[in-house]
């Protein structure tokens, strides 16, 4: 239970800088998720917090104490790895107690802490098994238990659910959320999966190419993405981006008036979430269905507009379209996101219905 502060963190491998100056305050008890595509630096940042990579420049503090010069064991952190990283020749009890035994904690206290963790994670029946006798989900629970017994100030999770299958991933995601509710610890969680980020995070940090693109609560990122990268990364199916132009008043797509906007004239990009599009005969977006995907409870309609741009709409699962059919979609102007051609958000002054 402690705050975590990163200030001016830079990291280079040889001549290549992979983190370009990162500042972040994590509050006590907060669950922060680092999210981004692979190679964006999120795992490197986590490994620097853990002390597994050296910081090239900048300061890391945990609970107000500077730690970036300390070895991992003295930083008050515990880490859960993607591949579980259990010691294969030790049983579950041995795995759980290993760090404490090594730190010289008395046996009675080790037993107590191990048993508490085992109870929280329902590991009691597995205590004498070796890791190879456990399923993937059980192994990950042991890995989390190993972090819990250390009673760390900060929990670090490095894509802990990536090796699990879809159903188990959903289940363990809820388990981690419950664990956070129960322990109230500060946690940093790295993932490339925006669904995990949205559901787990108190705040999300979106990484791209070693840079932080945006920090905010899941709903802030969903409702007010600062650029097209964040807008496209958060939400599923991904946001549609349409080339549009404006004369300073009216935003037009392929010549059709869509909404009003007070800005300088020119080209811009319009971001529309698939779930905000509705079927409406009077809508401004008329086109031809190119692909229709049915998921049972919902369906995705891919519509090709007259100017060859395509967009995806998320509609009711009861509908059905054949490729080639006509389709007219409407969008509330308040739900349009307007970006300039460099992808930065433009905050429109006024909105008006079509």
């Amino acid at each position, binding site marked *: 239970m402690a705050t975590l502060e990163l200030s001016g963190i830079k990291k280079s491998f040889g001549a290549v800088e992979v983190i370009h100056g990162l500042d972040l305050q994590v509050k006590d008890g907060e669950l922060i998720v680092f999210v981004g595509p692979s190679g964006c630096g999120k795992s490197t940042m986590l490994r620097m917090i853990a002390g*597994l990579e050296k910081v090239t420049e900048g300061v890391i503090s945990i609970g107000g104490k500077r730690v970036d010069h300390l070895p991992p064991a003295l930083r008050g952190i515990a880490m859960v790895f993607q591949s579980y990283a259990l010691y294969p020749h030790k049983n579950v009890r041995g795995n759980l107690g290993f760090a404490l035994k090594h730190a010289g904690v008395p046996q009675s206290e080790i037993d107590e802490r191990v048993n508490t963790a085992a109870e929280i994670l329902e590991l009691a029946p597995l205590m004498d098994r070796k890791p190879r006798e456990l399923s993937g989900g059980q192994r990950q629970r042991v890995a989390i238990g190993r972090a819990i017994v250390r009673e760390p100030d900060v929990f670090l999770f490095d894509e802990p659910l990536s090796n699990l299958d879809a159903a188990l991933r959903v289940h363990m995601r809820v388990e981690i959320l419950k664990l956070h509710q129960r322990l109230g610890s500060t946690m940093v969680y790295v993932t490339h999966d925006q669904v995990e980020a949205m559901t787990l995070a108190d705040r999300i940090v979106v990484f791209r190419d070693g840079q932080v693109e945006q920090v905010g609560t899941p709903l802030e990122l969903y409702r007010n993405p600062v650029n097209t990268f964040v807008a496209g990364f958060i939400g599923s199916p991904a946001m549609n981006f349409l080339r549009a132009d404006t004369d300073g008043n009216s935003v037009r797509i392929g010549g059709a008036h869509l909404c009003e906007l007070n800005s300088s004239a020119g080209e811009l990009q319009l971001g529309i979430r698939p779930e905000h599009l509705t079927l409406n005969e009077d809508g401004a977006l008329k086109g031809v269905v190119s692909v229709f995907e049915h998921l049972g409870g919902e369906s995705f309609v891919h519509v090709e507009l007259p100017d060859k741009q395509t967009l995806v709409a998320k509609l009711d699962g009861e509908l059905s379209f054949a490729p080639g059919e006509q389709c007219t979609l409407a969008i509330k102007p308040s739900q349009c996101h307007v970006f300039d051609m460099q992808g930065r958000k433009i905050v429109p002054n006024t909105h008006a219905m079509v």
Partner: protein
Amino acid sequence: MLVRERITSTGIHAVLIAYSLLALFPLALIVINSLKSKKAIFRDPVGLPVGEAFSWKGYASVLTNSDFPLYFGNSLIVTCVSLFLILLFGAMASHALSEYRFPGDTFLGLYLILGIMVPIRLGTVALLQLVVDLNLANTLTALILVYTAQGLPIAIFIFTEFLKSVSREIKDSARIDGLSEYRIFFEVVVPLVRPVIATVAVFSMIPIWNDLWFPLILSPGEETRTVTLGVQQFIGQYTVNWGAVLASLSVAILPVLIMYVIFSKQLIRGITSGAVKG
């Protein structure tokens, strides 16, 4: 799967016994002939040492007329110490190469392994000079150093290949648990690659035990002779004491068999995990 495992295990033992019989036939031939008189050896090389063919003379001349126990001890010391050093330095060097990044790691890795290509015997003249300069001529130390240098490149080559497959995360996890780098190596990495260590041990041992060249050149003295060199004394210019040669060969096979027993379990695990699909 349990049934299959049991079948495989039985099968492996069956093949091991069959193989042992086959592989041990020449050894058996040596042992059998070592118990025969010289005449009997040449009259009927595959005959059993019974009746008048039987003779202890070979063993008698080995154990009494010569310093065989001394030679045997020398061989044992040289082989065990060299093997220990090869495994220790080989595994640690490979661990360092696969685990740490430092300036010149690529070059160092290349440098350590390139020795595979250049046989150390080509450097005999320079080595002899060096050994003499260091006052190590006619010592077992000289042999141990040379054999360690000779065995390291291929040991490092094979260790590096396998250590790459040890999960990086498990080492990081140990680091977070507060283990020192040495304890990570000995307590986490070594238990994971034990079969590989056994494999490297066995095939590093044989050339050392059997070598004739370096004992002849670096330590031919009476006190430091190894078994293979010692056996030569029974091979004269014109007459060969075959009984004694075969008796000493019989005794010299012992450590190979002992190694086999010690390492076989690990070795089989290593070989099957290598040769057979998981």
